[in-house]
């Protein structure tokens, strides 16, 4: 692709970064739609809505939340290392992030299989519909993030990122932190409240 020589435009921001920010704005509205529906439906079913602790394994998912927060930290450390020119640090950071992200997905799948075994499915009740739709779409975002991170990881092994230009890492980082943040909101409203 014949790109313009410099990505830095009139706003003083790299176009790729600006694009990711804008994309995240649309993602916020997407989750706003889903979360808004969740709130409305939950209030309409206050009587039969189960207490989260009675159905969900909160300690397990709490641990999973911890993993995801750690993965944001490893990515920040990796990026910082990369920007100092310490390439191995970047690679280790990316690798750990991928590992933690995959672990999150594995634990979520385990959680799903237990719940389905207990009879809670997407069509079993309004509670099940809301639970699987919200957490499922978040899980899909984590999956996309892990795949994106793997691509970035491979490129970092090829030495594509320099201290001057590690925009590719920054972009996946923005997305990853966003997915992390969405999870903290979802964990709060689905698991804790």
């Amino acid at each position: 692709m014949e790109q313009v020589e410099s990505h830095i435009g009139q706003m003083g921001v790299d176009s790729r970064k600006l694009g990711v920010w804008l994309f995240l704005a649309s993602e916020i509205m997407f989750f706003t739609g889903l979360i808004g529906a969740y709130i409305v439906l939950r209030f309409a079913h206050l009587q039969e809505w189960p207490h989260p602790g009675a159905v969900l394994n909160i300690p397990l998912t709490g641990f999973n939340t911890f993993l995801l927060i750690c993965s944001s930290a490893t990515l920040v450390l990796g990026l910082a290392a990369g920007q100092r020119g310490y390439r191995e640090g970047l690679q280790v950071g990316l690798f750990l992030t991928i590992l933690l992200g995959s672990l999150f997905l594995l634990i979520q799948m385990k959680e799903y299989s237990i719940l389905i075994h207990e009879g809670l499915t997407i069509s079993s009740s309004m509670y099940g519909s809301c639970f699987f739709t919200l957490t499922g779409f978040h899980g899909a975002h984590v999956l996309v993030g892990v795949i994106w991170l793997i691509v970035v990881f491979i490129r970092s092994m090829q030495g594509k990122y320099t201290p001057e230009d590690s925009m590719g890492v920054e972009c996946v980082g923005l997305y990853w932190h966003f997915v992390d943040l969405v999870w903290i909101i979802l964990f709060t409203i689905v698991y804790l409240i």
Partner: protein
Amino acid sequence: MSESHQKQSFLRKYIFSVDHKTIGIQFLFTTLFFFLVGGALALLLRWQLAYPGKPMPVLGQVFPESMMVGGIMLPEFYNALFTMHASVMIFFAIIPLLVGAFGNFVVPLQIGAPDMAFPRLNMLSYWFFWPSAIVALSGFFVQSGAAATGWTAYPPLSAIEGTGQTLWVVAVIMVGASSLMGAINYLTTILNMRAPGMGLFRMPMTVWAIFITSVITLLATPVLTSAMIMLLFDRTMGTHFFLSEGGGHVLLWQHLFWFYSHPAVYIMILPGMGIVSDVISTFSRKPIFGYHAMVYAIMGIAFLGFIVWGHHMFQSGMNPTVGTTFMLSTMLIAVPSAIKTFNWLGTMWRGTLRFTSAMLNAIAFVSMFVIGGLSGIFMASTAVDMYFHDTYFIVGHIHYVLFGGSMFAAFAGVYYWFPKMFGRKLNEPLGKIHFALTFIAFNCTFFPMHILGIGGHMRRIYDPMQYTHLQHLQPINVFITLSAFVLGVSQLILLVNFVKSLKWGEKVGKNPWESNTLEWQAPSPPGHGNFETTPTVYRGPYEYSEPGRSSDFHPQSEAA
């Protein structure tokens, strides 16, 4: 532009192009095609409304038994027709025509950029767009027939209808993704890729309009996507988000749908306002009246557009206080709209008007938009809407805004930028005949709908003759249908003009309209990379008829 860039394979240059101009022209051809498809669907259903139960001549024999029996339209097919007419026109014709075609072609040129910020994402946006239309239209060929629940797809009906509805939902999700890719691209391009000197308040109104439109697309479309996904789950995964039998909320759909779909009417009108501002200023040989006010008015409309969606739901049993809030916020939109209207008039006032086809269509936009806006005030008042709701009054209203507004603006844009796209002008006499016929037939088609609506003619009925209170109105229905046929046939003049001018149109230079904006400083058509050298911008876009200057225009990139 260097020679090496020109040696692209045919496939890369015309089919899988990443050049914004080619993608814009791809959008233009595709959307004009869907405009004709949507129009044909409308004509079919107009036959039924004028002559209910009468076999359709000639065409009636072509349709299979599942659609027409002995040339007589089945009610199910009628429902599919009005649903798909609206869906095709809104999702596959007007939005992608104004935003996809003009946005793509014009925006990088007007800001002096070599291309969009993300050329490949741009290509992807087109390659999500046209397949989505095919998916929706393929509903006509599945057993259940195409989607038939209206373009609003209200549950519970839309949650239980046949396969065609599923295809429709998938198509809307796809076309939404295409719009989002476009919006991200326009915003990044406009923010980041303006030529030196092109400050935000030196941007032409078309760029401003696409910019604000993209903000709306970015924030509203994902909400529709989330609603569509829940509807899809209701249809395929056994959930009951919108089905009351399983504890779902029918009204939840309406809120989510209109949270997108009211702002969507501004997605369909704001780019038109931008185009019309450029055209009117150029052909009045005068600066646009109140440039800053025009920009702030667009922003005001966009902001208000997000807090008025409830005016579609006055009948839904909502709390009257909430209804009044929505009524007031809706009526507030009249303020920025009026600012724009008066500024267009102020621009033309005492100008040296040049009545080109583009200008005529732009003036038609202004006058028809006023009628559509005024009938909108009726719909916005809760008390009046209680009576008018879901009658032909709303059908008349929406067509004054979407055809009278958006489509006339799109025609203006086609006549105005055709020379830049293809290096040739459209034929002016043919253009004027097309305009005159369209304008007259348009008003004959859609104005009487207000009268039908006041007479109580419901919006989506199959056979008006079944209702005694509508029988005496039937001559109006016949008149509307005849006018609609004239309107439809008139569009063939544009088609002929378009195809003919591509090959034989009058050749033009860089700046046939003596316009100021940057696209007219590039060759016609511009080569790969648009400008020979990156232009520098020295002034605003509308400096026409400056006193003491020999020529009556002053291009933005001219140093002195």
